[in-house]
């Protein structure tokens, strides 16, 4: 059976034009999708049933048993951490927040280790953003700063920016100019009109220099700024100003390098400065397909986008104190529920070690690095393949993903609802 207009649940692009062929409970072919999408749909390494650690080996268990044990662990814990949420749909995230409130837990999503700094900067100076559709139809200068879309968001360039013909740009890739800023020559830089190679950690200085040039203070620029020559900065600034509508996309190269959220703040201020001359927007390149959604869901329920602490009964948000990495490093929490993400692979070593010491439960369809740290893993349906739900694209557009076939796995929502019910019962509410 061929299903058209399938939404790809891999990266923040949420391409919604895939054609997927399904036979029974297997995906047999994926059209229009990139390599990453294809692997996501076709990959067949799911866990068969819930597993729990018994001594030095794993033993299979039933869903009822696994959920009951999870509820017990969470109820017993003094300071549980509910981490992840970026790889699941909005409905499940909503239950997660309520669960956290019930437990008085700390709830955090993966933006704590990716675009958390961006969110902090946006909270300070605002977000001159726009949808990807606007970029596609109008933008004639595209900047990729500290991101390599060809590897991380393969279809970003062909679907939304450089190559896609827009309403106002008929010959897109000939009329659009692409600037790539990175610390090394990436694949994306191969097709850039201008590649700016900066020294690691030099983003803030280069952004400030560009701001100065755009403001008309060319005279104060030294011969070279963080490895970028003055001439190239002038050229880049001229290119930026030549745009009728420009779009800046930034990735972890900007958020997770020295300077952190100050980098983003500076980038947003550069965008503001450019907006005095022409139209510019700036958007983060979100990684997980629904990480934007987790920020949205957290915000509309608790008021804060990530790192929300319910330990005091009310939502409390203080990045640096309530972010999961800091909590784990301080060895504060004594139980962890990981939903649809892989902190074992992405957290610092000290945090992963602490995760291994405390009872950790993972809810994820596949085994991954976190499996090796956890006590129980509960496999679930993959949203977008055998479960449905709502997700937010990297520009904040909600998109409903579809269920391609009815599988044998329960969805995240089902598992979490049962868990919620058990916890509620245990708390006597």
């Amino acid at each position: 059976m061929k299903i058209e207009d399938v939404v790809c649940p891999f990266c923040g692009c949420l391409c919604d034009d895939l054609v997927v062929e399904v036979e029974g409970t297997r995906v047999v072919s994926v059209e229009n999708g990139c390599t990453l999408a294809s692997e996501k749909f076709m990959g067949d390494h799911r866990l068969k049933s819930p597993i729990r650690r018994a001594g030095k080996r794993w033993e299979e268990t039933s869903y009822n048993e696994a959920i009951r044990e999870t509820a017990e662990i969470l109820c017993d814990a003094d300071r549980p951490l509910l981490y992840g949420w970026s790889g699941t749909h909005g409905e499940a995230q909503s239950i997660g927040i309520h669960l956290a409130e019930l437990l008085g837990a700390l709830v955090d999503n993966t933006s704590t280790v990716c675009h958390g700094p961006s969110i902090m900067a946006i909270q300070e100076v605002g977000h001159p953003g726009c949808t990807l559709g606007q970029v596609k139809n109008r933008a004639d200068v595209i900047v990729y700063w500290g991101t390599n879309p060809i590897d991380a968001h393969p279809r970003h360039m062909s679907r939304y920016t450089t190559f896609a013909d827009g309403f106002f740009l008929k010959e897109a890739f000939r009329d659009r100019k692409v600037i790539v800023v990175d610390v090394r020559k990436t694949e994306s830089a191969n097709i850039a009109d201008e590649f700016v190679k900066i020294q690691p950690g030099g983003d803030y200085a280069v952004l400030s220099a560009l701001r100065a040039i755009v403001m008309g203070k060319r005279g104060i620029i030294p011969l070279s700024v963080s490895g970028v020559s003055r001439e190239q900065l002038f050229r880049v600034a001229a290119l930026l100003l030549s745009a009728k509508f420009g779009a800046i996309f930034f990735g972890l190269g900007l958020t997770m390098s020295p300077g952190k959220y100050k980098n983003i703040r500076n980038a947003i201020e550069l965008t503001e400065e450019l907006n005095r001359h022409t139209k510019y927007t700036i958007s983060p390149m979100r990684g997980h397909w629904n990480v934007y959604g987790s920020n949205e869901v957290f915000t509309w329920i608790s008021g804060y986008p990530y790192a929300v602490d319910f330990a005091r009964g009310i939502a409390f948000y203080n990045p640096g104190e309530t972010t999961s990495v800091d909590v784990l490093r301080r060895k504060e929490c004594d139980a962890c529920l990981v939903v649809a993400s892989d902190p074992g692979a992405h957290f610092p070593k000290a945090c992963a070690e602490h995760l291994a010491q405390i009872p950790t439960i993972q809810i994820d369809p596949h085994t991954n690095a976190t499996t090796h740290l956890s006590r129980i893993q509960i496999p679930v349906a993959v949203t977008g393949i055998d479960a449905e739900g709502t997700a937010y694209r990297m520009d904040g557009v909600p998109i409903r993903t579809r269920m391609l076939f009815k599988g044998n796995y329960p969805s995240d929502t089902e598992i979490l609802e049962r868990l919620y019910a058990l916890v509620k019962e245990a708390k006597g509410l």
Partner: protein
Amino acid sequence: MAFPIIPYIQEVTRLEWLRKFFFVKTAPLLTPPYFRGFPELTGKTCTHALFCMMACPAPGAIDVIRTPGGWQPRIHMGHCIRCGLCVEACPNGVLTSGRILESMFYDNTRLSFSFRIDVNTDLCMGCGNCAVACPVNKLIDAQMSHGGRASTDELLLKVSEGKCHVLHVEKCTGCKTCENHCPNEAIRVSRLLEAVHGQEEEV
């Protein structure tokens, strides 16, 4: 050798030298008609065959764009090396440069082509840049150029199973757009150009 001045006096008193010295004018600096300049339009209708882009050896020297009056090749000065291959390649004689068109007619010469597209699936990321940029794809399926949604199997290039696939190699015109816009250098168009003495009628 005894009188080293003598050869010079001989030189200066040569009749032709004197004639040149007194009467010759600076030659007008005309560009001869046989000089292969930048290709110019002849005014014939371009059918978007894209053979010019195929034959062009210089990066970014020629592209065919849609204008209000139909398709039209556009030469980029500063990239064009004036080799004249586009003139020879065009089946409709849209371009002209120097005496090339004329001598193709007199000498009865032409170029014949065949193409081969190879995709290195180890390098391909399935980003779809090639399929979206491909001008043949744009003609077949307008949706394709607006973000890479393929709705038909008649396309030349299509991304499926996460890799770029060549579906109809016979539709390729060899314009190299895909090759130029592949970030991973995964797609390669080889153009087998053959210079022949044309007996047969042009198709």
